[in-house]
């Protein structure tokens, strides 16, 4: 935060566009493109009344898709939470040839279109796999796709914290005879937890809504590998926007919840630092 100068009454007409115009334009644009359409989803989901909403959300196939989505997204966040922390540690504290290239490659899942990500995994882990592993059309395939697309979140959130970490504490602990494992769990990990949690939360949010990478590899088998976003898509295709909107509202609620949680973790993290 810039606190150097008072929030001042600047001479009108001079200085930077001090927020009023910028705020108006951004809010208007955000409302037009994002908020109004989302309101339309909520409205459509309630068009037939609360009962119709509830019937759509509690239909067996919807419940099954939502439950599977939640579980697989949680698993994704947990696995990439651990793997991401480990990779971040290796990228920050270890030295090996090619480290910069590896570091740049981490962002590949963000840069690669999701449909290509799905096809890519299918090439190695689908029918015709050169290593004889075929997980296509299974729940494991969905997990694999989600692990791929959410890989960078935890790494990119933990890396900067690890870089800034004061190493004196670790040295002090070591000089007092603490073993590396103890130093990690007692000294390093506590400072990383907020970053790990917010990275994992982002990964979770992304996994809950993911569509492109999952749609080819999962086979969309209802009651088995069908995730919520694919369920919504199928409802749109079969001209049932009401049902699609109802499940979408559940997904929207989850997204908001995660955003709020990330804010909370962020606030807690910055308090932690002081």
């Amino acid at each position: 935060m810039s606190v150097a100068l008072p929030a001042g009454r600047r001479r009108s007409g001079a200085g930077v566009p001090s927020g009023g115009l910028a705020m108006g334009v951004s809010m208007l644009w955000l409302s037009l493109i994002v908020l109004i359409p989302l309101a339309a989803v909520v409205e459509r989901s309630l068009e037939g009344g609360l009962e119709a909403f509830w019937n759509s959300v509690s239909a067996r196939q919807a419940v099954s898709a939502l439950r599977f989505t939640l579980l697989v997204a949680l698993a994704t966040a947990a696995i990439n939470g651990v793997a991401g922390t480990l990779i971040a540690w290796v990228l920050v504290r270890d030295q090996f040839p090619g480290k910069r290239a590896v570091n740049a490659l981490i962002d590949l899942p963000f840069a690669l279109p999701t449909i290509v990500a799905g096809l890519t995994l299918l090439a190695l882990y689908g029918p015709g796999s050169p290593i004889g592993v075929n997980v296509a059309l299974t729940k494991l395939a969905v997990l694999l796709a989600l692990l791929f697309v959410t890989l960078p979140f935890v790494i990119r959130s933990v890396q900067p914290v690890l870089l800034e970490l004061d190493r004196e504490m670790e040295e002090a602990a070591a000089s007092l005879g603490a073993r590396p494992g103890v130093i990690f769990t007692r000294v390093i990990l506590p400072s990383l937890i907020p970053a790990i949690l917010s990275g994992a939360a982002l990964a979770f949010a992304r996994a809950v809504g993911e569509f492109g990478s999952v749609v080819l590899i999962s086979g969309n088998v209802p009651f088995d590998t069908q995730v919520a976003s694919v369920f919504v898509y199928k409802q749109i295709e079969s001209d049932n926007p009401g049902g699609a909107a109802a499940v979408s509202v559940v997904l929207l609620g989850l997204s908001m919840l995660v955003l709020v949680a990330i804010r909370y973790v962020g606030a807690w993290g910055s308090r932690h630092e002081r």
Partner: protein
Amino acid sequence: MSVDRRTRIGLRVVALGYLAVLLLVPVGLVFYRTFEKGLGFVWESVTTPAAISALFLTLEVAAITVPLNAAFGIFAALALVRGRFPGRRLLDALIDLPFAISPVVIGLALLLVFGRTGWFGPELAEAGIQIIFSVPGIVIATVFVSMPFVAREVAPVLEEIGEEQEQAAATLGANAWQTFWRVTLPAIRWGLAYGVVLSTARAIGEFGAVSVVSGKVAGETETLTLLVEKRFQNFDLAGAYAASALLALIALGTLLAMSLIGARKSEA
């Protein structure tokens, strides 16, 4: 933490192994599969009329979307950092929504506003404007999904540079526009460039939201990512790989741009 050599190498192997199994080997394999039939085949496959029209549509959508996002991003970043209005926190909370929402839900939302039976459907039909199942729908969907990138990259830079220089310019008699153009914009240029790269990559790669609103008419509303899906579903695996390789090349270019600009950004 001074870990002994064996642990360190063990951790390194696990980390790199995870990356290899998840990222490197699959992506490498797609390139291998694409080119094992020879360059000629790939060239033919990405120069069919449908593929060329998909490529141009994808580029056209990105060319419209990215400037819009850049402009919005600058405004939003200014509002977030410099704004002193009660709406600031609300904007800060809402701006990340597009990242947290499923692309399919985004597509549905646009359908329910601009579609035939949507909120503005009848009026749009009367005026003879078609948004859903045509290019404007694809553009709006892409703007939605890639909206926050520039704002999120520019805001921290704005915060860091502070307001002293801008106020000095104002004191010296520069008007708001001059101050922005001569002082603010040069200071945020690398953050802006980074956001633009991320936004471009997302615009080119968007699939879910676009697939709901596009209608997927070959030669008209079919983007590259939709072409990949269609070829795959029509059992044209080699064709799908070729189109994917093209998209993957764009992604690698994005990574390169990111690391080059990222280095500049941290120098500045």
